[in-house]
């Protein structure tokens, strides 16, 4: 188990920022472990969700910003639903990921690339273009064999459009992204 030297490493501004952006009071967590017990992702995490909450109380910015768990949370809402103190834990996981993105920390690059490719598709077409999303993901990650086994099954089903579904108001979607970026987004 890691030992943390609290006298040097508590970042009170980090705690304040997470609380403000998530609207949650992190000191309410009394470490019952219910979130971790119900989390389907614990086996893939480097830090279980209850320990993320504890690290947050202790202001461990660097440790949490670089952990893999916040990128692997699927927002299944088990933790939020089961927290006896009504802490929206999944929302905190989201906020931590937002902050990690802005800090340029991406220990799970494929996950980030998938999200970015998805949103690029929305920005350009107004709706997700599934084939285009896959192509962009594979090009950006170099993982050209991703789901190759599925292509022989999927293509004959004729479920996937070969061209994007552009909406009439796609400019209004592009504007949402432009305004967001102007106001300090990515």
């Amino acid at each position, binding site marked *: 188990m890691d030992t943390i030297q609290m006298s040097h490493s508590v970042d009170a501004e980090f705690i304040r920022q997470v609380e403000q952006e998530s609207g949650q009071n992190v000191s309410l967590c009394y470490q019952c472990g219910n979130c971790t017990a119900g989390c389907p992702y614990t086996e893939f995490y480097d830090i279980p969700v209850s320990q993320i909450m504890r690290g947050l109380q202790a202001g461990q910015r660097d440790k949490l910003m670089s952990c893999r768990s916040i990128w692997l949370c699927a927002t299944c*809402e088990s933790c939020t639903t089961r927290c006896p103190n009504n802490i929206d834990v999944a929302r905190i996981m989201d906020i931590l990921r937002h902050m990690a993105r802005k800090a340029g920390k991406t220990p799970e690059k494929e*996950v980030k690339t998938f*999200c*970015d490719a*998805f949103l690029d598709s929305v920005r350009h077409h107004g709706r*997700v273009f599934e084939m285009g999303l896959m192509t962009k993901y594979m090009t950006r990650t170099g993982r050209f064999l991703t789901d190759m086994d599925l292509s022989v099954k999927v293509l004959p089903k004729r479920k996937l459009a070969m061209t994007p579904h552009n909406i009439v108001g*796609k400019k209004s979607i592009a*504007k*949402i992204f432009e305004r967001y970026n102007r106001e300090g*987004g990515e």
Partner: protein
Amino acid sequence: MSDTLRFAYYPGCSGQGTSIEYDQSTRAICKALGIELVDIPDWSCCGSTPAHTVDHVLSGALSARNILQAESLQDVRGIITPCPSCLTNLKTASHRMRDAAFKAKVDSLLDKPCRNDLPIMSVLQVIYQELGPEAVKAKVTNPLTGLKVAPYYGCIMNRPPEIMDFDDCENPIAMDRLMEAVGAEVMPFPLKVECCGASYGIAKNEVVTKLSGKLLDIAVDCGAKSMVTACPLCQMNLDMRQDQINRANGSKHSIPIFYYTQLIGLALGMNGSSLMLDKLFVNPSTVIREMKASQAAAAS
């Protein structure tokens, strides 16, 4: 608000692609059940999971644009969608916009502010609450007697309960009751709200093969010969990736994963092709043949 069951319909992007059979069967049964769907004009993507993992205001705005588009429709009782991911994004955006400061930030990204006064529900909620299982049962012409099915809701149709405000967040029963109403045999399935691995099929495939593999294992252990879902992503993970799951886990599952709308459609007498049963990856014909055989045996 109008008394007729007329709703603004949000199909969601996957309804035009990987879950086209869900959209098609949803439209078919809603028509048969007297629910009028008016497509939201020029609807756009809600941003799904990627948007809310990047920023909550951006995610809110992508959903709010659709709420805004729906507000241009006359005499609709609310917005409905078949997809739980779209549903949670629309409902979360609407819920958070009750906070004036959050709404101001969302509105600043939109062409014009939305009213945010339309109720938002899943198609499942409307069928279950506005019509009810008895009304569905009354229209059944082809009961699915002998179909052993495990109902799988996925994680976010009912959670978190403060926002989703429908059914039970740990043990939902809406699909169970509707499946019973159409004559299927509903298996007790304890993993109704466990996560299938969500959108990690592409970026972290081992997450999906492990989590969805567990769902298939337990469903079969519970005696199910098929599963029924209400979520395009859950369905895709369990159905399209079933071979990947088998390879990763050394299992040999071959169980069809239906949408609940397809099964209701079958019970209402619609044919398999109009419900796009041929779009499912695990061929359901064996299960359907067995169901018909057991019906014939019971009748003789």
